[in-house]
């Protein structure tokens, strides 16, 4: 393009308010777009980070979640004794037999009740889940009415903070520790001794069995052995896959809704850009005629206006992205429809999202500017010059 770039920049500056308003409209759209992508990413990160690739989760066949599943002691013992299961440092099998129930707790901010996952775990659980670390207090003592709460749960639910008490299963449970699970799904859970919880709820059956594989590559072998055994009625999945599946509906919903909204919003922004660019062309008709008379080719005029539109888009994109990045300070907590329990996740910004967002903004600008730029380039010189 032979027309100097400074010409385009200065023209945007010359019509400052219009530029600001148009870019502002785009910034809003970009904000929504980026926020949705960040939310998706946050959800994915939370759920995928829940669990390790080397762990296998087994629940009863046809149950979709741990809460619906029942595995009795006999079956649990059979699963524990599978040869492919890893052995811990102390020689014990790295297996956690867990009971999972939902308990209604009141939120601290709204006072309204919601379902919280309470997981009864075995002593091996922390070795199976190395990403979980106790950051306050201590682990519960087996046999005691003690529980530990995930960071999110402790923050958001009444009675779940360290030193506080919760009442369920006809007992008082003291929160003796808070654990950090690196912002994964476990952060929204409350953990206690499986045996104590089973007694309190009068449920002498487990919900799920989680085992660490001695050799992760032997997963398929393990799965086949466990699913074809006549004495067992379980389904085995890698822990990461299990949690990913749990959020499928919610993730899909966010993605679908977000995409629809972004498309609708972008129409508004593109229309705004179009109106602005058409006005810009109209205001500079005489200039365009002059440039063409001087010998600048049509392609240069087209490029100059496309650049102007693209700059509008990029400006809007940067502003929108800037404000969207502040969303990282917020957490969303909502009920995951599949697990029926509350899940907290946040907005996560990644370089990929930054690139996607800027590309989206650029595209909006270019789409808005295309037709006006074409009009500018196709002006007849004599007509344009006449319009002083």
């Amino acid at each position, binding site marked *: 393009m*032979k*027309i*100097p770039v*400074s*010409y385009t920049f*200065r*023209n945007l*500056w*010359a019509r400052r308010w219009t530029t600001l308003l148009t870019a502002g409209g785009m910034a809003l759209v970009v904000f929504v777009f980026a926020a949705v992508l960040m939310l998706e990413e946050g959800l994915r990160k939370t759920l995928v980070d829940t669990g390790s690739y080397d762990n296998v989760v087994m629940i009863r066949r046809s149950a979709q979640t741990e809460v619906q599943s029942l595995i009795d002691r006999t079956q649990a013992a059979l699963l524990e004794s599978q040869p492919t299961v890893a052995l811990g440092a102390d020689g014990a099998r790295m297996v956690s037999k867990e009971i999972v129930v939902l308990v209604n707790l009141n939120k601290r901010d709204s006072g309204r009740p919601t379902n919280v996952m309470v997981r009864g775990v075995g002593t091996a659980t922390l070795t199976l889940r190395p990403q979980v670390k106790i950051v306050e207090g201590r682990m519960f003592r087996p046999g005691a009415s003690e529980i530990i709460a995930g960071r999110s749960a402790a923050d958001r639910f009444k009675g779940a903070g360290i030193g506080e008490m919760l009442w369920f299963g006809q007992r008082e449970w003291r929160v003796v520790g808070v654990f950090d699970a690196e912002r994964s799904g476990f952060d929204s859970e409350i953990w206690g001794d499986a045996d104590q919880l089973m007694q309190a709820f009068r449920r002498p059956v487990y919900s799920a069995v989680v085992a660490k594989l001695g050799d992760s590559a032997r997963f398929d072998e393990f799965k086949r052995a466990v699913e074809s055994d006549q004495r067992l009625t379980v389904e085995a999945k890698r822990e990461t896959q299990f949690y990913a599946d749990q959020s499928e509906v919610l993730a899909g919903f966010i993605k679908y809704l977000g995409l629809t909204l972004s498309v609708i919003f972008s129409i508004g922004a593109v229309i705004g850009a179009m109106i602005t660019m058409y006005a810009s062309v109209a205001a500079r008709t*005489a*200039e365009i*005629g*002059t*440039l*063409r*008379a*001087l*010998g*600048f*080719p*049509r392609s240069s005029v087209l490029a100059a206006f496309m650049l102007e539109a693209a700059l509008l888009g990029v400006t809007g994109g940067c502003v929108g992205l800037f404000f969207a990045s502040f969303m990282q300070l917020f957490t969303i907590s909502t009920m995951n429809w599949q697990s029926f329990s509350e899940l907290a996740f946040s907005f996560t910004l990644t370089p990929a999202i930054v690139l996607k967002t800027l590309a989206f903004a650029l595209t909006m600008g270019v789409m808005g500017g295309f037709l006006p730029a074409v009009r500018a380039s196709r002006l*007849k*010189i*004599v007509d344009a*010059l006449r319009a*002083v």
Partner: protein
Amino acid sequence: MVVEIRHLAKAYQRGDQIVPVLTDITLDIAAGDYVALMGPSGSGKSTLLNLIAGIDKPDSGSLCVGGVDIVTLDEADLAAWRARNVGFIFQFYNLMPVLTAFENVELPLLLTDLGARERREHVHAALAMVGLSDRLEHYPSELSGGQQQRVAIARAIITDPTILVADEPTGDLDRASAEDVLNLIDRLNRELGKTIIMVTHDPHAAAKARSIRQLDKGELAG
């Protein structure tokens, strides 16, 4: 002959009516000529100027400028041809409001292969010639009408074009500024030997030219 026109005709479409503007124009302009085209409003003088400058296409006839029949050139070639061969001086100066005087004059050079340093030298020279060396960094809004026109003239001569076309160059100027501009154009013709074709309805301006051609209802008189 720098400009050779044979049987040029041009008509415009207004709604569903076809209005003829020029009928059978034949005209020669020699190198170094300073011609004023005069005539009443609607006589077609501006149209003729536009055709010679290559910013409009005739319906029929031939038009050779500097030996090239520009009627046969396509859009892209015509643009390139204009850049090298035509200098424009408009009634309303037609400067880019967002570019400084320097940058406005530099504009046509961006279509050449010259480097930044060479361009700068040319611009300085052109602005010196029109007496505006001290106004390089001013924007058009900071210049008077006469000064803006002189910047436009510097822009018009910077590529050393074959012809200079001026459409009512003094139409928007006060008496004194108009006088300055006309003197400048005169110098370009006498000292630099530039071929100048000027459209005007101001007889005072026309008087400065070497020859005057009258247009009436699309035909050249005399």
